């Protein structure tokens, strides 16, 4: 598009020609322009906050709860303080237990769904539906069931099985139950996906050669599903590790996890630098695990970027 003649003066003829032809803006950048709004949002509302958190994590807590200089590594050193390290380890243990339970409970369900023919889609949707409808309310539902005067204790007393209410709420068990309930769909989905892609001929061959069903499952199906098992496990483990609402409501302050500690530092404790260091430790741990699992199972587990 030459708008100037060689000596620099506007060239009327070329200009007119371009003007009549330009009805829709021709964008030199091509598809990149489409990305602009999302890139802006990601930069301003995802990357920038993270940069600020990283910066805060090296600052000192101010006298009134703000942040101030000098730079320090103190906040990261405090992560190893037994008081906090114990909460960190507890979170890992609870998340791992919840993941294991999701696997044990989710695998047979995924197998059942993958074998149910035309009802597959419906059954899978039924697993996912509660997941999309209010995590908060689903957690509250468990309070309603488990508290001392809750429905379960009420029934048990009424049937005469117990005389005084069992303490079902506000301990690690209740937290793990809430996590399993919350994230079971994340396990079932990738397991189902790998079962669907499974080469049925291996299974049929094993059965034809006389292996009993349990043995076919244990020695043929399960090893072939390993990528799905890993994918599901990491998809459950990461949100469980960072859980906030479940330990807050079902643990009742007695069973707290890293997420609660982070929230506490940013609200009542007003120690933002330490809260920032904790957040980054949580992010880093999740990320390292994710990258490790992705490396290990490759693209097979459905962990590839969804875009």
């Amino acid at each position, binding site marked *: 598009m030459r708008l100037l003649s060689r000596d620099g003066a506007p060239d009327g003829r070329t200009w007119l020609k371009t003007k009549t032809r330009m009805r829709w803006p021709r964008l030199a950048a091509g598809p990149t322009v489409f990305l602009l709004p999302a890139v802006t949002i990601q930069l301003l509302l995802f990357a920038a906050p993270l940069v600020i958190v990283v910066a805060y994590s090296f600052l000192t807590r101010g006298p009134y709860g703000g942040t101030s200089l000098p730079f320090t590594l103190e906040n990261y050193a405090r992560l190893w303080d037994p008081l906090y390290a114990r909460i960190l380890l507890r979170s890992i243990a609870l998340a791992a237990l919840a993941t294991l339970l999701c696997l044990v409970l989710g695998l047979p369900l995924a197998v059942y769904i993958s074998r149910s023919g035309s009802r597959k889609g419906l059954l899978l949707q039924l697993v996912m539906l509660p997941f999309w409808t209010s*995590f908060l309310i689903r957690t509250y*539902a468990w309070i*309603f069931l488990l508290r001392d005067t809750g429905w379960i204790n009420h029934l048990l007393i009424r049937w005469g099985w117990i005389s005084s209410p069992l303490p079902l709420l506000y301990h690690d068990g209740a937290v793990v139950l809430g996590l399993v309930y919350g994230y079971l769909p994340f396990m079932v989905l990738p397991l189902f996906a790998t079962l669907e892609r499974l080469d049925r001929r291996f299974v049929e061959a094993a059965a034809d050669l006389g292996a009993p069903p349990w043995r076919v499952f244990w020695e043929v199906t399960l090893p072939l599903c390993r990528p799905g098992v890993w994918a599901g496990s990491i998809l459950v483990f990461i949100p469980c590790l960072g859980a906030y609402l479940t330990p807050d409501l079902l643990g009742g302050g007695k069973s707290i996890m890293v997420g609660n500690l982070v929230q506490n530092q940013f609200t009542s404790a007003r120690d933002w630098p330490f809260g920032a260091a904790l957040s980054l430790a949580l992010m880093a741990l999740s990320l390292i695990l994710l990258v490790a699992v992705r490396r290990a199972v490759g693209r097979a587990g459905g962990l590839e970027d969804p*875009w």
Partner: protein
Amino acid sequence: MRLLALYAAAAYLFLYLPLAVLAIFSFNDSRFSEWTGFSWRWYRALAADPRLIPCTLNSLLIGLSATVLATAAGTLAAYGLWKRRHPWLAASLYLSLLSPEIVTGVSLLALYQWMFRYLDLRLGLHTVILAHVSFCVPYVVIVVMSRLKTMDPALEEAALDLGATEWRAFWQVTLPQLWPGVAAAALLAFTISFDDFVITSLVAGVDSETLPMLIYSSARRGISPALNAISTVIVVLLSALILLSERLRES
């Protein structure tokens, strides 16, 4: 197989029983776990709660604003990513999808507080809306992208070959085929926004209490059948939106 079917039935019971019990007892005449008869009294009590209307309006306003903005940005981004790979944006979306809600919340809070040092602003509806836009975008991109992947690129290539600009090809050729995916994404974004508590509670101001915040504060205070009533209404409505979204995705 029979054993497996039995197990699956138990698993579905596990997934749905807590919500079912919650819903049933919202119609209980008594405030305790003993069933004493059907009654609408908790729904009437709900209507009398003065905080309900403002919280619902806030949730709707936040949800609708965030949905419009996130759907627009996410749809355009999905289209751009479909045309050409962009590893940085993809990685950033993936990361924001996987970062724990509490971390997203506190980092947004840190950003806002840092900005407020230089700007005369406070936490309020606008900060909540921006936060919701940011966590809804990745979901929109996923849903729209899955729709784009089922589409035949030949139509758009034909439009481009015939001299359409990329904008024109997008608006007049691709978008008209894409709209069920866009609508499904919008419904999902609204559901996620309407439901969020963790991030919202961190970046909300005094004037921006939402419905989940109301539910949370009541749940912390103790159980009330009115809470069951509002929960039942929300679960039913959100489930309907999700089912509609799924139908659109499959159409």
